[in-house]
């Protein structure tokens, strides 16, 4: 029985295609620079924490991230 091919992009496309989410930038342009900076600070702390945890894990297990794990 032939099965219709499903275009999986519909499941993963979150409203933009390619490298840039124009919708998000448009939203950010509606904010003031102070609002943009305050919003960014939450993300900055999140990424900083994630990088810190990743570095800690790699110290405990050097094989992580080396391609040997």
């Amino acid at each position, binding site marked *: 029985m032939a099965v219709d091919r499903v275009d999986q992009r519909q499941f993963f496309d979150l409203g933009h295609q390619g490298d840039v989410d124009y919708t998000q930038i448009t939203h*950010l*342009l509606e904010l003031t620079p102070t609002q943009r900076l305050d919003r960014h600070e939450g993300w900055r702390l999140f990424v900083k924490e994630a990088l810190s945890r990743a570095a800690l894990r790699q110290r405990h297990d050097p094989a992580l991230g080396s391609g040997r794990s």
Partner: protein
Amino acid sequence: MQHFVKDTIRRLVQAEVEFVVVGGISGVLQGASLVTVDLDICYKRSPANLARLAAALAPLEPKLRGLPSELPAAFDERTLHLGTNFTLQVGDENLDLLAEMKAIGGYEQIIAQAVEVPIDDLRVKVLSLEQLIATKAAVGRLKDLAALPILKATLELKRQHG
């Protein structure tokens, strides 16, 4: 610090340091959907400004990043006179002080095209998106190249919307 980026900028403005916010934060302030961990500034290398910059940062006890902690490497006005670009650690935060940026030059070239933005009650000079794109393209690290489509799209949308 409660809000590292904002608190550091406020500290520099209040100390009358002549500087421009550069790097990813300059893109964020102009609407780019980037996330960056560090704060980068470009500073004027006049003797008076070096003194103001050193005095403003002294209470934060900045250290040169990556040096072994046992080395007695003080960061002060004399250090600023001896170098140009510095990568500092302030507590657990990263602050980069740049006198020159690849493809766009030093403070004088950057301030000439800088954009002024309000942050709370402050007026702060930030690197223009055009210059940010030029320097990131020239530096060419993976993370710089990855940011280019977002920065170009931000510039395009800003031009469309005036």
